[in-house]
């Protein structure tokens, strides 16, 4: 195999795939990147057996072929190369010679056939959506994914295809984020899938503003085809909890909040919410919201916001991190906070189909 390629393009392709490579792995081949060259293009593939990514890179191919090379090492070398033009020549023993300007490197690789192939998606159910929609949906939900490994069904985002809608849900038991994307697909494609955290994270990095993404679903596997890049992931097996049960009934009070202002105030006040009593209190009174935090023997913080609020006076406490996470992820100027009472969950909404349920913390006065 022999090809030449520009440094920028190769680096970009490597950056797309190299995150999947795990540093500590029992199988040495998994720390390698699979390089496959056909007439005009070079394919780069990495996998950790759960998630696999394949990127494409334009190249001038002199001799087609395939090999695997240690991903991290190759990436570090390419990044440091002095010249833009790179020639890579791989001999029959998978030893790659990398030439660029005055530099020369020889890297020993492993044969291509040891590399686990990415699963095939023949006859899979396919749904196409805009990349931007999916990226936004994931951004609005992924922060709520549980990190508790004992609750493995929650270690991912639920993709629920139903009623011409894709509903994305993430929860960790104390909060729940849900976003919906309008889509058209046949009834037969309706299904509930749980996409693991790592795939979601990688997907968010890969998705861009323009273009479509083709989602293929088959038994226990999902593939996201982003035209030049492909991400394949195993699904989490199990039943995702019935998230609709969590969404509270009709709200008693609705408060319209200026997202950024609210977020900034929370951030400031939360400076005085200690690790132990990690809560900030929202005190509502007519047209006013006081945000307070207090740590015994440290001090207290308070900030007032003018809000259009006409309801009864009451206070509710939340974990500030949990309250700020959706505010950071959203881009809207205005958010609505729906509340029932101090012990019932609060619901954060925006104009588009999205909601975030957050359990209050108990106020022991």
């Amino acid at each position, binding site marked *: 195999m022999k090809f030449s390629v520009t440094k920028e393009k190769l680096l970009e392709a490597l950056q797309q795939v190299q995150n999947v490579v795990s540093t500590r792995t029992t199988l040495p081949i998994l720390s390698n990147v699979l390089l496959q060259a056909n007439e005009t293009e070079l394919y780069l593939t990495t996998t950790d057996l759960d998630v696999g990514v394949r990127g494409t890179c334009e190249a001038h191919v002199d001799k087609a072929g395939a090999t695997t090379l240690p991903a991290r090492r190759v990436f570090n070398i390419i990044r440091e190369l002095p010249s833009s033009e790179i020639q890579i020549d791989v001999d029959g023993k998978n030893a790659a010679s990398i030439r660029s300007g005055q530099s020369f490197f020889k890297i020993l690789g492993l044969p291509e056939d040891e590399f686990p192939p990415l699963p095939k998606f023949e006859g899979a159910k396919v749904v196409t959506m805009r990349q931007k929609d999916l990226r936004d949906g994931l951004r609005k939900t992924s922060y709520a994914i549980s990190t508790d490994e004992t609750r493995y069904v929650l270690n991912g985002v639920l993709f629920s295809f139903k009623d011409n809608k894709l509903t994305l849900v993430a929860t960790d038991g104390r909060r729940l984020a849900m976003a919906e994307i309008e889509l058209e697909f046949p009834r037969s494609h309706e299904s509930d899938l749980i996409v693991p955290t790592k795939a979601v994270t990688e997907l968010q990095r890969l998705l861009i503003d323009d273009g479509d993404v083709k989602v293929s679903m088959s038994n226990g596997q999902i593939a996201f085809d982003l035209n030049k890049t492909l991400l394949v992931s195993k699904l989490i097996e199990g039943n995702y909890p019935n998230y609709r049960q969590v969404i509270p009934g009709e709200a008693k009070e609705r408060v319209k909040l200026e997202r950024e202002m609210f977020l900034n105030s929370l951030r400031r006040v939360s400076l005085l919410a200690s690790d*132990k009593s990690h809560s900030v209190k929202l005190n509502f009174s007519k*047209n006013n919201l006081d945000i307070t935090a207090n740590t015994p023997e440290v001090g207290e913080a308070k900030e007032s916001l003018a809000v259009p609020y006409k309801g009864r006076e009451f206070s509710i406490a939340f974990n500030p991190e949990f309250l700020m996470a959706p505010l950071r992820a959203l881009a809207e100027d205005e958010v609505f906070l729906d509340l029932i009472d101090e012990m019932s969950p609060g619901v954060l909404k925006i104009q588009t189909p999205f909601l975030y349920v957050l359990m209050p913390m*108990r106020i*022991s*006065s």
Partner: protein
Amino acid sequence: MWRFCNTVNNFRMDKKCTQLWQRLSAALRPQISTDSFKRWFSTVELVEAKEKSLTLTVPNNIYQLWIESNYMPALQNAIIATLGSPRSVKFCSPSAARAQTFAEDSASVTEPLPSPQVDARPGATVPGLNPRNTFESFVVGPNNEIAHAASLAVAQAPARTYNPLFIYGGVGLGKTHLMQAIGQFVWAKKKNMKVIYVSSELFINEFIDAIQHSNLVKFRKRYRQADLLLIDDIQFLGGKERSQEEFFHTFNTLFDGHKQIVLSSDRPASEIANLEHRLVSRFEWGLTAELQPPDIETRLAILRKKANTMQIKLHEDVFQFLASRIRTNVRRLEGALMRVASFASLSGRELTKETVEHLLKDILQEEGRQSITIEQIQRRVAEHFDVRLADMTSKRRPASIAFPRQVAMYLARELTKASLNEIGDAFGGRDHGTVLHACKLVKKRMSEQDNIRQTISYIDSSLQR
């Protein structure tokens, strides 16, 4: 987490469990909201009660998840209250796929929360408001009675009486003082009122900034959520079309929301150049109050009050002198007082009329130029004695004309800085000796005849107003 358990198939709800669950529910209910209890616990059943553990059946895994994550402390509290000691709690699904798990012994989620907060900003005030500008420190006179009364009414009941309130008047007559007094009054009464005080220049700058960084929404929110909007020197909005438009909408939003708006300007709304008509008409919608230069009594009162607050003691003559010579501008009056007072305390010397005059010569010069001209005197005197203005400069000298002319010359000598020659010139090219003679004569007649002294002091004070 959803481990299968095979041991639960033969669970029977026995009476003991039902009763225990009822007691647990009763202890649990007050700790969580009715809605939450109904949602999460109404379908839960207690199926097994052992020495150290309780097993609950839940309809599906979301119940277990949510109860474990959120209601474990409450449930443990209820268990302790009912059974006297904690138990571990297991969950089971009633369906074929029965799940069971152990809840870790409730690492408490809840922590004591802050006790009721005290107001953390006792000394704080609305940004931009000078705490000294209050209604108490405002000296009311006939010149500003209406403006003061209207402001007080607005402050006591915002958006009820006069909305918008438009205060106008020349520089240093107390527009800003009144506006800030309204702001402080309202804010002091209700701390959660959102009071915004800005100069129109700041308003415009913030608007431009908002356009630049395209965060207009934030800008709009800031102003449109105000309960009381005070905009000073609104005349600077003239000619700034987009700012006017923005302000127009802000104005409408606030007005429709029954929020008080107070504006100040150095001239009536209709005279502000390049101000859109719809804004002019809106400014004139509520109450328009004019501030006029204070009369001499008010000026004296202002000086005394100011001297009192600054704790300076001056001779009554000094007050009189300052009040009579500085007529147009309260700010300047206070500045003069300050200057005189600091000179007195620094030098420790007795203040004479001459030293004061020397100290304030620039101010007095400015005042003289601004206020009274010989022509004004002539006009006023002619009017008073009912002679033609032309007679002031004419060569005719019957007593009915000559005496008023002499009075005018005397007043010109007293009230202006003009030299005898200049005065003579202004009176039809008369000799300086003529003017000197007129002054002496008038002084003499004033000391002899009460009615003449009264007449002249009347003209004098009417000129000084």
